[in-house]
């Protein structure tokens, strides 16, 4: 919505201030009938719909000036308000039964209609989850697919960051208003996404995150992705909500299999076994659903890097997976100072990655 140009649009902006549920908003609009003037609103009998507190709040804010000011303040913050009655409202959400009536957006709106993949999972991945997420996300993002996720710790933030690093586009769906980004550690990440991608929330800026806002926002994540990829999640994880929504909406569900002893691979393994999700072991498995025939290769610069003999010694030890520093220093045959400096050089050139716990793996 660019500006308030009718009584109806004013009423919508008014409604967006209260973070009511979709169904309540719908009922309110129906109750108004065809007359959307504020005068009419005051005459309504709202007791059956909302509680007393909300009624008094709504009545006190039902004022043209307040609504105008609020709308201007949104614009001032660079926030676009999309309503389900707008042209720009994403097609992907339009058909859904519980689609949000309001979407607060900050960033590049065109991303909403691009081919996309939601990547979700645990907030505390293992090194395995970290590696596979980064690997898949970087290949997917390089091929122009928008990565959708939820700005949470773990898989979410890894996906956003990796995508941005690869120069890809990403959408973060928040479980709170823009003024109360949660977790606060990710405020800087959110700002970067607002600049280079898109931030989306169904909550008005002042709204704080609560326990139930996150499962609810998961439906938007599932809705905005053309598919949903689960890399690592426990059997009781909140990721289950996203999975259920994805199945409800008929989206493609992808999962990365993992060690059967690992608690955090339980959910992906489970949904692969039950046939709900497609098993993904490489990015190609996903591309076949996106009409991507020819994959773009890694950036050339990385291949140009000439490995010294010392660096080759380190890389060769990493060929069969992640190793810890002690193992490497013992087996590479290099003095420790030379090992350290060569490892950093490999890291800078993007060939190896350092993981928590003193572990090293090939990127």
């Amino acid at each position, binding site marked *: 919505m660019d500006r308030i140009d009718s009584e109806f649009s004013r009423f919508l902006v008014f409604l967006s201030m209260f973070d009511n549920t979709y169904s309540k908003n719908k009922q309110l609009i129906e109750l108004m009938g065809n007359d959307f003037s504020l005068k009419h609103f005051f005459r309504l009998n709202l007791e059956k719909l909302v509680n007393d507190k909300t009624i008094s709040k709504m009545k006190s804010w039902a004022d043209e000036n307040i609504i105008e000011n609020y709308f201007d303040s949104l614009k001032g913050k660079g926030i676009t308000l999309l309503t389900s009655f707008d042209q720009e409202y994403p097609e992907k959400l339009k058909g859904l039964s519980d689609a949000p009536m309001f979407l607060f957006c900050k960033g590049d709106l065109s991303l909403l209609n691009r081919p996309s993949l939601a990547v979700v999972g645990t907030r505390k991945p293992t090194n395995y989850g970290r590696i596979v997420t980064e690997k898949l996300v970087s290949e997917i993002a390089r091929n122009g697919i928008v990565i959708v996720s939820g700005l949470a710790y773990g898989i979410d933030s890894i996906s956003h960051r990796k995508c941005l690093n690869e120069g890809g586009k990403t959408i973060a769906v928040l479980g709170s208003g823009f003024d109360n980004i949660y*977790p606060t550690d990710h405020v800087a990440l959110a700002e970067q996404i607002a600049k280079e991608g898109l931030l989306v929330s169904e909550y008005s800026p002042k709204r704080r995150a609560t326990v139930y806002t996150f499962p609810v926002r998961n439906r938007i994540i599932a809705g905005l992705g053309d598919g949903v990829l689960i890399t690592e999640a426990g059997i009781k994880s909140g990721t289950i909500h996203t999975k259920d929504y994805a199945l409800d909406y008929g989206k493609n569900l992808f999962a990365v299999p993992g060690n059967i002893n690992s608690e955090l691979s339980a959910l992906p393994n489970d949904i692969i076994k039950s046939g709900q999700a497609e098993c993904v072991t490489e990015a190609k498995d996903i591309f076949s659903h996106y009409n991507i025939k020819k994959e773009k290769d890694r950036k050339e610069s990385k291949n140009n890097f000439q490995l010294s003999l010392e660096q080759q010694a380190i890389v060769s030890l990493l060929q069969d997976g992640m190793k810890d520093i002690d193992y490497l220093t013992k087996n590479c045959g290099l003095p420790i100072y030379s090992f350290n400096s*060569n490892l950093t050089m490999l890291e800078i050139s993007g060939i190896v990655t350092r993981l928590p716990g003193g572990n090293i793996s090939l990127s």
Partner: protein
Amino acid sequence: MLSKVKSFGLKGIEGFPIDVETDVSNGLPHFEIVGLADTAIKEAKERVRSAIKNSGYEYPAKRITINLAPADIKKEGALYDLSIAVAILSCNEEYKIKNEDKYVYVGELSFDGSVKQVRGVLPLLISARKLGYKKFIIPIANKEEASFIDGINIYCVKSLKQTIDFLSGEEELFPIECCDFKVLQNEDSDMSMDFCNVKGQAMAKRALEIAAAGGHNLLMIGPPGSGKSMLAKCFPSILPSLTFEEALEVTKIHSIAGELDLKKGIVTHRPFRSPHHTASTVSLTGGGANSKPGEISLADHGVLFLDEFPEYSRQTIETLRQPLEDGVITVARSNATITYPANFTLIASMNPCPCGNYGSKEKECHCSPGQISRYLAKLSGPIMDRIDIHIEVDNVTYDQLKSDERAERSSEIKKRVNKARAVQTERFKNDKNFCNAKMSSYQVKKYCKLDANGDIMLRNAFEKLKLSARAHDRLLKVARTIADLDGSENIEAQHIAEAISYRQLDRKYWN
């Protein structure tokens, strides 16, 4: 009858002269001490009387008044007992005491007349020597610590009777002989804490070597049982040996705090202090009623090891800022403001998360991401700014524990450290600081020249590895030390690259 003898008081680590004036006059028997004396001195009355009586002398049944001059400085401790007793007895001509005012007396008296040891003899003697005092009478128990001071005559006594006999010429005493510090230091070397006993951990050992060579503070991050404490305890064994001047400095502080090993008399090795994380702020910084030195001053010229760093109270951690920067701590209390030296190397260790298993291969971590981030956030930016090196220490495997291979001895590492320190001594001969870690930003610009490759490396590192801006100067300082260890004039690319690998906490991968 009036008599006057000398004693010495202590304010912080500096001594000041005190005149003990005694007036014995006719009147009702009475004993009074004036001159801002604390309770310990007031009680000298009873000790002195019993000691005089039990040494076979007559305690004058007269009016005795003692003045501790200068009268406006607070005095504390029991070290004036001996001087008071001598002053009282010298009023009695029967005992033929001569030249009693030529000596400085220090010592506590016991009821049986024996002279007991006192705290702070070494700093007191050093100050007194500076002020030109030549002859001292001290308790025999303090002999060892006094024996490192040359150029003055020190007589050790075991009792009041011996003191009086010496003063009256009935017994001859000889000044103590000066000890050779180097000999004692070598005799005293402790071989149990040696890096050759640490299995694996090549990375951590190298980082500690660099920390020792450049005087850098270091933080170890690792799960419980990964050997962080063991590594830290071995750290002093690769630091350059204490010089005699440094040893005197350290001994002074330990002597005041009453922490000195009286058999040795001097601190021969770099102190290693590891206060528990429940330690109060005052016990760390120093202070209390008589402004005693705290743990960080006791760690002067040595190592302060803070295990479980984030578990210390926020306030305690933050008070380390000034000493880490200036090498001194100023303790201001209502009755005194005292500056103690606090020139230590900080070795801190912490777990990667509250449960300790984050990133571990064997065990699962049960902390929430928020908990982990709060745990790490306990270390504020300004403190992290003062820690040059962060490393991860991982669990040692069973195979490594059982392996018979002998690692490099501390003495070998120490040779390299000494070489690098020599380079720094030459570099900073016109400056105040003596090691790379203490360089100012101006000095960093002057001494940390990068070659072209090094510059490209640093630029790439900042872009690709997302290092924080505060890492920049730290990196250059550490790289300077690595280049010194390498014997290289300029900082080359490989030195920078190695330095970067010791900045783990600057990486963004923790969440």
